[in-house]
């Protein structure tokens, strides 16, 4: 296979990494694949994620704030301010969580900083009765849907106020009251759940739409393909949001797919795929609203590729300087979704600097209070560890629990460190 060259929008020609990966040295095999040249640093900071559009569909980036390629959704002033306030609360919450992690007060964190517009804007296009099947980087959605800061922070601490009873790592929430489905770590598994739930709603004659999220890395898992295929076949009222932030931990987009875009993948499954500027909340909202409306009208699923960036580490254990350059981060910080939205609100005279400051101050207060409360709550009881495996304790579980309790008090000590 000859190495495939591609011209990126910044004009440089780079070699696809796959060609360089071809195994060529084999004592058992006589055949060797051609060695490709050039592009030593596949993930150099010069790499651009905006590839030259070559296919008709799924390549144009839709935007309101700077691009004018999609219409302003015309949200009410109150709604605009609510969305902005949710973004502010999310931003403040994430910053605080990382500090708590560094201080050793919580075990782990996955910040979504930089991606607030992408998930808050998409979720905002739903009705409250619609269901969300999240990945782990959509922390603003529970806030948007009315979950209290205290419920969220209790989950970080895994204390006995935590809805999940301290069973999962931080950010693996479950908020049934907000139709926000329990999060698991394995990438991509939620995607077909959303399709199934959408099929169930359709079967029951209800007009619920389901929305589900994954990252650019998530598109490589089998589940992504199963989900899009099923959704296409059954015309399920489901909307897929691929938050393309260019990285899956240290793995750059170029190593994830040879597709021009993520949106174009929809085409193979016979469903529409669109790309939106994920740091432009108005565009994100508008594009998603159209997809949600289509789904609700029985016209089937849509894949939305939301172009965004995590400006922080993959998680509290990650050191992004190992794999990406500062220039790229600075570039994206200049496209900060909060700043862009703020500018818009200012231009429409909906927000004064004073009001803005007050929003940040209130959010800090809100998080502080939640942290204070969480730190006063005890761990879940030892006996609670045996609950919810099944509806009823099995005889074996009862025996194991009783035997453990008979040993008396023990401390749960954490020794290792978490790398990811």
């Amino acid at each position: 296979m000859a190495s495939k060259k591609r011209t990126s929008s910044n004009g440089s020609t780079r070699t696809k990494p796959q060609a360089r990966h071809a195994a060529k040295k084999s004592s058992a095999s006589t055949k060797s694949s051609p060695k490709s040249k050039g592009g030593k640093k596949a993930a150099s900071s010069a790499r651009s994620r905006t590839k030259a559009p070559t296919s008709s569909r799924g390549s144009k980036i839709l935007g309101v704030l700077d691009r004018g390629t999609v219409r302003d959704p015309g949200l009410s002033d109150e709604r605009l301010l609510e969305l902005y306030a949710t973004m502010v609360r999310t931003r403040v919450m994430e910053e605080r969580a990382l500090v708590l992690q560094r201080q050793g007060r919580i075990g782990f964190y996955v910040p979504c900083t930089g991606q607030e517009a992408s998930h808050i804007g998409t979720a905002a296009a739903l009705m409250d009765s619609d269901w969300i099947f999240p990945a782990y980087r959509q922390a603003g959605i529970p806030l948007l849907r009315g979950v209290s800061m205290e419920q969220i922070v209790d989950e970080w601490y895994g204390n006995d106020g935590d809805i999940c009873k301290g069973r999962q790592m931080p950010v693996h929430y479950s908020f049934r009251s907000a139709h926000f489905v329990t999060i698991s770590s394995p990438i991509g598994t939620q995607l077909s759940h959303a399709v199934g739930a959408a099929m169930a709603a359709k079967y029951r004659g209800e007009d619920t739409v389901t929305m589900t999220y994954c990252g650019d890395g998530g598109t490589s898992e089998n589940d992504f393909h199963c989900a899009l295929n099923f959704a296409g076949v059954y015309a399920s009222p489901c909307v897929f949001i691929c938050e393309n932030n260019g990285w899956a931990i240290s793995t750059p987009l170029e190593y994830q797919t040879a597709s021009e875009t993520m949106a174009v993948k929809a085409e193979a499954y016979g469903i529409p795929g669109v790309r939106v500027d994920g740091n432009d909340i108005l565009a994100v909202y508008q594009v998603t609203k159209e997809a949600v409306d289509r789904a609700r009208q029985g016209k089937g699923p849509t894949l939305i590729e939301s172009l965004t960036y995590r400006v922080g580490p993959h998680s509290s254990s990650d050191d992004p300087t190992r794999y990406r350059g500062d220039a790229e981060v600075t570039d994206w910080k200049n496209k900060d979704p909060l700043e862009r939205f703020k500018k818009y609100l200012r231009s429409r005279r909906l927000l004064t600097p004073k009001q803005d400051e007050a929003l940040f101050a209130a959010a800090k207060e809100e998080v502080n209070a939640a942290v204070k409360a969480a730190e006063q709550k005890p761990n879940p009881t030892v006996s609670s560890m045996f609950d919810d495996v099944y509806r009823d304790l099995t005889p074996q579980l009862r025996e194991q629990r009783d035997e453990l309790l008979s040993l008396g008090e023990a401390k749960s000590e954490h020794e290792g460190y978490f790398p990811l």
Partner: protein
Amino acid sequence: MATMTLLEGIRDGLFTEMRNDDRVLCFGEDVGRNGGVFRTTDGLQKEFGEERCFDTPLSECGIIGTAIGMAMYGLRPVPEIQFQDFIFPAFDQIVSEAAKIRYRSGGEYTCPMVIRTPYGGGIRGGHYHSQSGEAYFCHTPGLKVVIPSTPADAKGLLISSIRDEDPVLFLEPKKIYRTMKGEVPEGEHVVPLGKGRIVREGKDCTIVAYGAMVETCEKAADELKKQRGIDVEIVDPRTLVPLDEKMILDSVRKTGRLVTVYEAPKTGGFGGEIAAIVAENAIGSLEGPIVRVAGFDTPFPYTLEGIYMPDVRRVVRGVERTFEW
């Protein structure tokens, strides 16, 4: 000899065998540029280039499936699954394909590859970064299952696994990646598969443990000696498949007692298999009941991790129980 951590022992094994054999390739999620999320493969890409150490798309099924193809074609792939908890998208490829290729083709095709993956609890990883799934794989004929518990064994067993003609699942006890230190021979160092290790000799009770549990059992043995005068012998089988049954049986015939210790949920765990082997072959030597000290039959919890995992207290209690009946 150099002092290394368990993780460094593994890395040294990879370097040694990649220098030794250009059929060896390492790949997986974040193993190249980043050197693995635990840094186990750090420096490999620098020394061997992107052709031999590379990052893959986020697909365990793809990683293992392509490794199988490479192995059939004559390479010695050493794919990494970032956490054993994430191996399940590749379960079909491992169980239905890698493990059965030799048998189903009458030996025409083989699948010599090593799947490296960190497993086990102890790092505050919650449900999905803590599990011990060895039993699923031990139940798969055609697959070997190896678990080191010291830096030197990690290196020597890994090299043997890479040289083995059959697929090997190499489970790395991540809790002790950095805390377990020891002398590791430089260069060529081979620990054969199928040979256990007597961790310490004793005459009153045999404990069979592997991975991070070996260390816990050593501490428990100290306690038992100090507080009760009980002299424990610890056997680390090092490879679960094939298992050094002789070493375990010889030990139990000597001590007359057996406790098996494993992190995985108790029901269906590998310690139960060891108990069955002893019951079948050495029941006449037993002077007390066989006891399993294991994880509970619940998913792996987050906050209560330290209570879920077998600890010194529970191992001590388990040994005591072999004397109470």
